[in-house]
């Protein structure tokens, strides 16, 4: 297990180094820089600005300087947001994205597993068809359409929740729901198909023969085996929810990290692009690592192989 973890961690750091290198050179390859603007600025002023931020140095020197910064946990200052460091931006924005992400993840898992189980136990009956109909809707409708619909229904018409903003629980309900619909639909489909397969196994028949009721069978025998693919889906899903919440954050005026991530590319705010990309990559890799470890606990056969 220790050997496995060491191997995984070293490949994680190497991947992060590759991400940093690729992002750095790709970012400098795209046209424009932090100071490109529609108003003409005299060349002398432009050079002074670039000198101030070290952008007049050769690209490779800037790269080495940046790598040194990463090693010493100094991600540098933002070029566009005067006086704000990348670390400030991440520490302020990420907890918000994380709260929203975890809330929507909880909704997605609860809804997805419940509906998937319901559908599998009523395979090809009307309950199954209803669940699958909603799952198809959830997968096909983009989150911004769901968000706008929820805003219209629950804020404008029913006046239950506020239209937007962040800070209270009621403000987080609609964005979390909008973000949860797509993964909930995926999880429901995944759970259903796996459970249908597991339900046909001999040991389920044995359990039934032993006189266990449906609830006991579902919890003790079916879910544990059927959820393995769902758990492997949870790793990338967590990362996707954390990184992909930008649209929802924008619609609901949520000050999460997603907004900074996208805005940094628009602004060519080099240090923020690097910092947020690396941070998100680390999150994704960490989630995948966590899933690998979780596997060992769910399926002891995998532990033996490590």
């Amino acid at each position, binding site marked *: 297990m220790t050997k496995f973890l060491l191997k995984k961690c070293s490949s994680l750091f190497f991947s992060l180094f590759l991400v940093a290198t690729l992002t750095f050179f790709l970012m400098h390859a795209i046209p424009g820089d932090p100071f*490109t*603007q529609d108003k003409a600025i005299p060349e002398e002023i432009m050079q002074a600005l670039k000198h101030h931020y070290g952008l007049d140095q050769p690209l490779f020197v800037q790269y080495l300087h940046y790598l040194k910064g990463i090693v010493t946990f100094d991600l540098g200052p933002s070029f566009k947001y005067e*006086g704000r460091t990348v670390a400030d931006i991440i520490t302020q924005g990420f907890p918000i994205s994380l709260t929203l992400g975890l809330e929507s993840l909880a909704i997605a898992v609860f809804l997805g597993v419940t509906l998937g189980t319901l559908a599998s136990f009523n395979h090809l009956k009307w309950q199954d068809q209803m669940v699958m109909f909603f799952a198809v809707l959830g997968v096909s409708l983009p989150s911004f359409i769901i968000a*706008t619909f929820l805003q219209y229904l629950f804020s*404008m018409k029913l006046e239950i929740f506020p*239209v937007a*903003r962040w800070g209270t629980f009621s403000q987080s309900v609609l964005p979390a729901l909008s973000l949860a619909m797509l993964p909930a639909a995926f999880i429901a489909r995944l759970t259903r198909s796996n459970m249908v397969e597991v339900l046909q196994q001999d040991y389920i028949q044995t359990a039934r023969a032993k006189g266990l009721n449906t609830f006991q069978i579902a919890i003790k025998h079916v879910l544990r085996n059927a959820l393995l693919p769902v758990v492997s889906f949870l790793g990338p899903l967590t990362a996707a929810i954390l990184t992909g919440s930008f649209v929802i954050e*924008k619609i609901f005026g949520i000050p999460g990290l997603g907004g900074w991530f996208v805005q940094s590319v628009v602004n060519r705010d080099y240090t923020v692009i690097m910092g947020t990309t690396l941070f998100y990559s680390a999150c994704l890799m960490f989630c995948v690592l966590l899933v690998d470890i979780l596997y060992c606990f769910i399926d002891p056969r995998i532990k033996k192989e490590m």
Partner: protein
Amino acid sequence: MKLNFLIPILLLGFSCQKGSEASKKIPQELRMNLHGEPLCLDPRKANDVTSINVLGACFEGLMRLGEDRSLAFGVAKEVKVSEDLKTYIFSLRNATWSDGVPITAFDFMDSWLSILDPSFASEFAHELFIIKNAKAYREGKATKEEIGIKAIDNQTLEVQLEYPIPYFLDLVSIGYFYPVPSHIAKSNPLWAKKYSKDFVGNGPFKLAEWQHYNEITLIKNEAYWDKDKVKLQKIYLPIIQDVSTELSMYENGELDWAGAPFSSLPLDAIPTIIKKHTLETFPVAGVYYYVFNVQKHPFNNRHLRMAFALAIQRQTIIDNILQGKQEPALWFVPPVLWKEKRENSTFKDGDLIEAKKLFNLALKEMGKTKETLEPITLSYNTSEGHHKIAQAIQQQWKEAFGIDVKLENKEWKVFLDELNKHEFQVARLGGIASYNDPMSFLDEGVSSRSLWTNKAYTKLIEKAAITSDPKRREYDLKNAEDLLIEDMPYAPIYFYTYSYLKKPYVKGVKISNTGHFEFKYTYLETHD
């Protein structure tokens, strides 16, 4: 028994009285969407609309927008201007910073000099080159002491200019000419970077909270010299980037204002908005235009440029796409900037007959036919509005000349990069005046995009820049604009208006020609 019938009437009377008392006690708290996070709240560096408007509430220059929208005294109470319009002596009133420390002429001097300091890295350094020896100092040819900014004493500031600037008083009312609190800036250079007790201003409001990317709260500055005129107690400025959400919040009563100047109204929703609400518009000094690359074939041909400009049917675009009561631009300088309004332009809007004549003449001069004319590409930055306008103009050019124009939209910085490298044929641009004067549109910036040069034009601009006779100056500038229209390096399309929705109880709103929102005189009227 006889009094029984009086009870409901008395109750009604009390309830009415209670109701009117409640409506009288309406909190003076305005809620407006800021749309974006301010890039910087140091007046010497802020260059985005969001920061500039927040700073306008928290700071005040020597002059300020008055209640009647004309220029009024701010921190200055008097100014003496020399006959040659090159020396300005400001007498300062007894005003204080929001922490109670008196504002002195030294605060202004230190602030302006720091902008010129190369190590300070301000994008505005060149804007101060109008001050005597400022440019020379920057180039290392003069000392700091030789710069024409002198604090004679605590209450007197003398400014010497390189040449007469009739709009200098307008300039000292805008952002980078605000003072910064020297007593704070010296001990804490990071004072403006975030909200803290060190964020000290001298405007009608002060910063009470700054939650990044979430909300800014301003409260009335009780230390402001003209505080009796300020009625608003609090201004909530949430940051919502999505314009549709902003509109929903306005309709749901969560905002008192939606749209310009901080944000915009969703273009698709304008017809519905017009039906449901009272859409208000306000003309500002801005122009939307297409720039031709005059150095490259085929737009190095003047007649072709004119043909393309004349064939644009501006009113149709305004009526069908923009719907914000914009004015078709038949000049380059927005009309609000001239003291005396200009007469009719030399060309008409959508003059297809003349456009066709000019097009055929241009083809003849270039030895081409419309079939052999190289493909023309119209570039613009990715935006729904620009795309719709470009599509309309593409269609109008096809109808007029029978040619297909290719549309090419690009991400903002990629687009700007190509513009800076002059790798375009026709490109969209637009802008609002930096200061309240036609020179803001006619100065040397004119040639930077299209690479257009004209000796007579340059001569007229130089003449206008040094004359101290305002009438002569306006005459020269108008003649220069005539040359610009005659050569048509730019096809002006429409003059900007600000479109917004405001609740009927929001009163006293003042917006400057340059699009700056003045919170000082705004108040909320009694309402139920």
